[in-house]
């Protein structure tokens, strides 16, 4: 008998006004697997993550985590389910009114998983895990470079040791070397914690480094799913066009002239 998926989506649909953003998404993510979701801008990748997180309510469909339909949970239990998910936002989304250490400790204190002293100690531990000195904890997020902000955002996402991790464009805006460093940290942390991860990205090198499995979303539908290692030679015309960055192919960009 096959293992129950950690995350299972069935028929997830979301519409904003006239625009159908998610058109019946079906997706399974097995436990301790890293799933990379690729797709063009506006294809619905971020909306998909936000639906799973509960930040956006889908119009139809079901989202199961460990076999439990989170869309039908009472608010308290929904909040508890969300607390098991760590999220790395595209631009870091660090709170700029508080220090780096307070950013990292924020979730631990909000979830009452630690005292202030314990949270501070945990912040220093995770800063070390992402390759930053403890002294960085006293800085403001605005004092950090883009790469350091991403590392702090990763530290914040993993501080409470979540069993599910989401990464929204983790390497966007970083140089290739820093991108590889962040990917390495993500892979290392996901394996170390035994977490299940979903990453959305445009960066093919990053997708192959992070992912065990990959899926492509186009016009709100999953058009391909397979091993991340086969992304560059998937045999699917859409995936091939996207991964090789070809202008001609089944995906037509809507350009106004």
């Amino acid at each position, binding site marked *: 008998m096959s293992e129950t998926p950690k995350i299972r989506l069935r028929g997830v649909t979301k519409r904003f006004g006239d625009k159908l953003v998610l058109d019946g998404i079906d997706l399974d993510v097995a436990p301790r697997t890293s799933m990379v979701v690729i797709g063009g801008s506006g294809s619905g990748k971020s909306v998909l993550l*936000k639906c799973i997180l*509960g*930040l956006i309510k889908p119009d139809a469909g079901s989202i199961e985590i460990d076999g439990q339909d989170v869309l039908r949970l009472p608010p308290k239990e929904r909040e508890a389910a*969300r607390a098991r998910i760590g999220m790395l936002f595209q*631009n870091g*989304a*660090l709170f700029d009114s508080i220090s780096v250490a307070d950013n990292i400790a924020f*979730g631990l204190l*909000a979830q009452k998983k630690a005292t202030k002293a314990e949270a501070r100690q945990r912040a220093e531990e995770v800063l070390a895990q992402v390759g930053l000195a403890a002294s960085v904890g006293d800085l403001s997020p605005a004092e950090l470079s883009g790469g350091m902000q991403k590392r702090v955002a990763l530290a*914040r996402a993993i501080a409470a040791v979540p069993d599910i991790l989401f990464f929204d464009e983790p390497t966007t805006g970083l140089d290739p070397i820093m991108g590889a460093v962040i990917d390495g940290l993500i892979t290392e942390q996901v394996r170390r914690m035994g977490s299940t991860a979903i990453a959305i990205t445009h960066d093919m090198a990053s997708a192959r480094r992070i992912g065990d499995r990959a899926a492509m979303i186009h016009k709100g539908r999953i058009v391909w799913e397979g091993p991340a290692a086969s992304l560059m030679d998937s045999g699917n015309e859409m995936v091939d066009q996207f991964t090789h960055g070809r202008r001609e192919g089944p995906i037509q960009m809507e350009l106004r002239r």
Partner: protein
Amino acid sequence: MAACEATGRVTLFAVLGLTHIVRPPFYGRAFLRALVEIGYFSLPVVALTAVFTGMVLALQSSIGLSRFSADSAIASLVVLSITRELGPVLGGLMVAGRVGAAMAAEIGTMRVTDQIDALTTLSTNPLKYLVAPRLLAGIVALPLLVVVANILGVMGGFIIAVGKLGFNPHTYLADTMRFLEVGDVVSGLVKAGVFGFLITLMGCYHGYHSRGGAQGVGAATTSAVVTASVLILALDYVLTELFFTK
């Protein structure tokens, strides 16, 4: 129809924000930070506004009242105008420009940079963490500012009356106190509390619902100041009717 929808959305936002003031967890540090930002840092602008308003009021009323040989009424006119109307209204408008705009810009930036979504993912209700402490701080800070504005406004009138118009200082102060009633001060402070709530509500609401990057944040800032200012003037009339019309 759109106006009804907008009113409904603002009302719901206000009710949710207010209920979070009394429901734990409480964010004491966020409240104190907002109190300092709204109250302490608005002191200079509110103080200057009050002093000059008191001075102008004394000067203008002396010009008008001297035509009826009623100069002795200047002291009571200044103190009643300041405590009942000008202290809370002008103080509210100045704070709306300074704090309402800053609040909408800060929360709006948090919205467009995903910081509000990040709060939710970190088990924190954004209404409880961002909105409730600011609403409470606005309700508390504005009356305190208006107390200061009342004193300084009367002082401004005193400076002109004594220094320029030749009033006896003791007589002027005695006239000031003679016609002032507790209700005059209390009504002004109640107005200030309502205005403080409106300013922070508009700042939080427009910031919280801003969309579309820097342009959206700019639009939210403008909307926060404009709606708060108009609401202050409109509610001032309603409250004046309630307090002083029998």
